[in-house]
């Protein structure tokens, strides 16, 4: 299936958000996730299924003012 990750389309095997993050190269990273505009906690990633066309935001700590 295809999902939009940080504005870029990616082909993934689907399944849960947690496994998709591993597949996309985020394994072990300190990131926060939002699916279709809604925050998904770290704890909920393992039971959050992805659907074709989902919009995923993966945010990391960054410099800020």
């Amino acid at each position, binding site marked *: 299936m295809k999902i939009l*990750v*940080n*504005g*870029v389309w990616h082909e993934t095997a689907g399944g849960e958000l947690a496994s998709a993050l591993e597949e*996309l*190269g*985020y394994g072990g*990273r*300190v*990131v*926060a*996730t*939002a699916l279709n*505009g*809604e*925050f998904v*906690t*770290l704890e909920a990633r393992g039971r959050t299924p992805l659907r074709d066309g989902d919009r995923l*935001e*993966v*945010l*990391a*700590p*960054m*410099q*800020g*003012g």
Partner: protein
Amino acid sequence: MLELYGTPLDSRLLLGTARYPSPAVLAQAVQASGCEVVTVSLRRESGGERSGQGFWSLVRGLGVRVLPNTAGCHSVKEAVTTAHMAREVFATSWVKLEVIGEDDTLQPDVFGLTEAARILCAEGFEVFPYTTEDLVVAERLLAAGCRVLMPWGAPIGSGRGLNNPLALKALRAHFPRIPLIIDAGLGVPSHAARAMELGFDAVLVNTAVAQAGDPVAMAAAFAQAVRAGHAARLAGAIEPLELAAPSTPVIGKAFLG
């Protein structure tokens, strides 16, 4: 001693972490400033990048508290969701709440800000709202549950100093016991000293340090200015006069005419 949401702080200077020439210079500037709180943000990172992880590791090594922001958020929903995400990543209930209303000035949308503050305070966040000098908005933010306010000095990154000192003085006078932090728009250490002389509790600086010719030296200069301004406030400044008042005694002056 300054206390923000029950956390005592020795330093009255807070630093932003953006726009430094390198991570090493950022780390040195934070150390030179003696600051105990730095602002951070959340941004997109692709699976192949590691910059965010490296940055977070650097900040954790500095031994300072982090104040995550919601920079760039234009709606209540965006700001609230970003705050939720920041709380998980940075493991703090502190949030510098920004809801931007206008892109040219990055002026806060004070209506969205008060609404987002109400939601987040009710959820247990300790909200540092980036606001204007408007006194009524300040009242609303306090009613929403905020116990610290961060009025702007001037538009973010503008380096103009205190655009509206009269209104800022009124804000200080009206809320004598609420921690007030001047956030944004300061350009040089004298601006920070001025803010402290007016009785503000702290200042938050980013661009003026990060983009200085020597950010580390400028961080130290801001730290000195903040200390001097605060000491002057405690010492009690004289009132300005319209005309001269001779400092040397007039009585006893020789008649030599």
